[in-house]
């Protein structure tokens, strides 16, 4: 049996941020996760709060917004908490593959549906998307890669579009990871760049699906830009996400280098609770059940998709600790009548409610477990999908949870 200063449950962006923050403070950390985390599905850019209009200064916008949303996770961190957490995140991504904001406000980037989407930090491979103009942009799709429909993008953005054939590679198996690995090969990306160049009619921008390499995306970008003579940008595609996988790999590399322990692929099968504190967890690794003890725990297991929340037919539960979950009163009220209701579905506000220290509390406001904190999308009172705040909540609360946990 091993003993840790901190065990982080969940390997999405919130859990990774918490683990890295704690390691940076000198703690002995174990991070456990049963899957790959939502990063590898949807991670592309870093959203803080997309609903703040691009012309508004983000610090002012979020500060005002927090005042109007006192129950939101950002009200726990404050703008300062977000700012320092984001600065720490950026520190993990030095150039050439760095994340930048384009000014004081949100920036609009094209999506795989040909819409524009607001975000805050952009990886270098997507940055040029903010500057594109329809008349000067060529959208390039790959025949057989069905998770990016170039014609849909170009028609909606009113750009010119082409679909390239990659003859050597059959039509069946073109997935985003397969394409990204091919792009990591210099000769392949040079050939792709050359095919694009032959299709160009004076465009200054090239939009491609977000598959520009897993290992060395900045080098892929550089090759394509030098061959085509245009500015190249990635556009997010259907899951899985290559840019999100890059973020995941960078965190994992850093955590391993700094001595964090990982237990991946197995669920937490039980928790040891005594006198209002968690003493340890069990991880099922059939046929064995291993026991891990720590002084502190951070629960960053995500929402329904990540397994942090689970919906029975009549109620929503938190399966690891059985922490009370704030939720609409009955199943009939979980969702609105229309998919695109102007209001977010009530179930999205469900989640774990915490005190100022991110410790889960019950309906009466009493702390449930003194040494357990919650971080990320499992928290109640946000609407990450609609308000476009997924990464911001993960990073800011993951950072704060680790700081507070180790200060206790």
């Amino acid at each position, binding site marked *: 049996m091993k003993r840790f200063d901190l065990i982080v449950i969940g390997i999405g962006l919130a859990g990774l941020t918490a683990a890295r923050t704690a390691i940076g403070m000198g703690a002995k950390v174990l991070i456990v996760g049963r899957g790959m985390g939502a990063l590898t599905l*949807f991670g592309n850019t870093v959203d803080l709060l997309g609903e703040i209009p691009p012309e508004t200064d983000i610090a002012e916008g979020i500060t005002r917004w927090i005042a109007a949303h006192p129950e939101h996770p950002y009200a726990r961190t404050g703008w300062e908490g977000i700012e320092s957490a984001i600065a720490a995140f950026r520190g993990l991504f030095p150039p050439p593959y760095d994340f930048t904001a384009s000014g004081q406000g949100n920036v609009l980037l094209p999506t795989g549906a040909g*819409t524009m989407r607001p975000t805050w930090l952009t990886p270098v491979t997507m940055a040029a998307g903010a500057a594109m103009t329809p008349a000067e942009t060529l959208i390039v799709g790959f025949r057989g890669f069905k998770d990016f*429909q170039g014609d849909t993008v170009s028609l909606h953005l009113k750009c010119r579009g082409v679909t390239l054939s990659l003859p050597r590679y059959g039509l069946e198996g073109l997935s985003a990871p397969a394409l990204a690995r091919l792009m990591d090969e210099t000769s392949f990306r040079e050939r792709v760049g050359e095919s694009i160049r032959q299709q160009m009619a004076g465009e200054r921008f090239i939009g491609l699906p977000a598959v520009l390499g897993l290992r060395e995306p900045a080098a892929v970008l550089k090759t394509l830009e030098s061959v085509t003579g245009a500015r190249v940008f990635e556009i997010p595609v259907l899951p899985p996400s290559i840019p999100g996988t890059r973020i995941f790999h960078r965190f994992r590399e850093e955590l391993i280098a700094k001595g964090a322990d990982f237990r991946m692929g197995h669920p937490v099968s039980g928790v040891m609770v005594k006198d209002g504190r968690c003493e340890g967890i069990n991880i099922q690794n059939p046929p064995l059940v291993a026991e891990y003890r720590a002084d502190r725990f951070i629960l960053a297991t995500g929402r329904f*998709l990540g397994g942090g929340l689970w919906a*029975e037919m009549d109620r929503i539960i938190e399966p690891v600790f059985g922490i009370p979950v704030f939720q609409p009163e009955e199943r009939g009220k979980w969702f609105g009548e229309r*998919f*695109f209701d102007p209001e977010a579905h009530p179930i999205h506000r469900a989640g774990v409610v915490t005190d100022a220290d991110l410790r889960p509390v019950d309906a009466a406001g009493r702390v449930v477990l003194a040494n357990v904190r919650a971080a990320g999308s499992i928290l109640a009172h946000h609407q990450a999908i609609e308000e476009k705040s997924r990464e911001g909540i993960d990073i800011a609360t993951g950072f704060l949870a680790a700081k507070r946990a180790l200060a206790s």
Partner: protein
Amino acid sequence: MVKVVTMADIAHCRRKFMDLQTEVLIIGGGATGTGIARDLSLRGIPCLLVEKGDFTSGASGRNQGLLHSGGRYAVNDPEAARECITENRILRRIAPHCIEPTDGLFVSLPEDGPEYRANFIRACGAAGIDTLPLSPREALSLEPRLNPRLIGAVQVPDGAIDPFTLVVENARDAESRGAHILIHTEVTDLIRDGVRIAGVRVRDRITAEAFAIAATWVINATGAWANHILRMAGLQIGLALSKGSMLITNTRLSERVLNRCHPPASGDIIVPNDTVSILGTTSLRADDLEHYEVTPEEVTFLVDELSRMIPDLKGERFTRAYAGVRPLLQSEEAGDDRMISRGFTLIDHGSCSGPEGLVTITGGKLMTYRLMAEKTVDFICERMGLHVPCSTHVQRLPGAGQGHTLQDRLLRLRRQAPAAKGEILCDCELVPREAVDAILREGKVRELQDILHRTRLAKGTCQGGFCVYRLLGLLNERHKADVSGGSNLILKAFLEERWRGIRPVLWGTSLKEEELIESIYKGLFNLTSGEPVLPGGGGA
């Protein structure tokens, strides 16, 4: 409504039919209407069918897909039971490719008692339905997920039927014999010529074009919508509308149809259907034919009630809920809709103080569609003085002999050379891009849902969450100019339609998957209830 084919296609189609004349005009593209079109065509009588949506938009496409043995009706309605078993045998002969001959079990639980079981076996015998009594052990060895507390089961020749293929095949066969069919074409009025109905006025629901069709006979085969048409002639018939709700599971729960062996009730049947199972059903009065939903209470009821037959049902993943409206002929005595006869009626309005030349065929059920068509066409022939016998009970449908099960699909896929397979649009149901291309080449589909009806796209686990984005990419590639700016509207309309089916079953794994779909469309793709944002920040 948003279109997916070019204006030129539609104009071409329209010119052919503008202000047409026909002998018999059929209203309704369900099983009955297309069955009548096929029967008329086989007897050499010219006809034209109009349908306001796509084929099977009404009860024909919103039922359990059950090939009744008649067992369900044997005790209470022997005549319906006899009709069922006769048609059951005919359909196995003429439409084997639409049928999975699974057999069915009538399962007795302790609370159902042995008396009903004995009655049931006797009544089936009297109706000519073969039965095979099974001990609990025998039943459990056939269907291991059954409640081990069962006291016995009776095997009958139930099965599963694919109503969409059945209807499309009837339509295809009718067309190949000279019938004309117009989908997305709605009747807006009946044209009167003195005491006769002389035809109908119709409107194309996609282009909004209006035109008239003259006919000697007009057959109202609109099922639950019968009174909607009759009102245009100031008529009304006694029709009770009964909503039945059903749930679809992600996997096939049993190899056979499972019925509770007790008097017909709600929540007493599970029908295997290809890779899934369909659980049914409820029976509630429907007021509004165009807007009805499956309520959370109905879903809870069905899951609770059917858990008696399959105890671990609650852990199952449900992919969709849907409801259909049955047209039930009103009997004099009020009461439970289940006690109203499932029989059909053929009304010659001319002989009961209505206009001549107008016939309504309604009531009945999918199982008797062919018989309903036969009786209707017999009547028309008699009035026309023609003596041509019906042959729909012996003439096989055109696709008979072609397999359609998952196994057949996999075999077909495996036989193709890797290079010819092409891109798979739908990973859940293995629908190749080529299958959609073939449908588009046929030129008959008018909107997205027409394509989805004709393939297994959007029928699998993700319910179209991934493949419809890909399908729209394909449509954009083919019809660039025509759908410019519109395909995200089609996508959003699809997601709303999908939502109606998915929302009632959102808990457990389905809810988990739904978070993925919402994260993609509202999160990643930023599709919202409002107007899209364009580059440069302006609204569309």
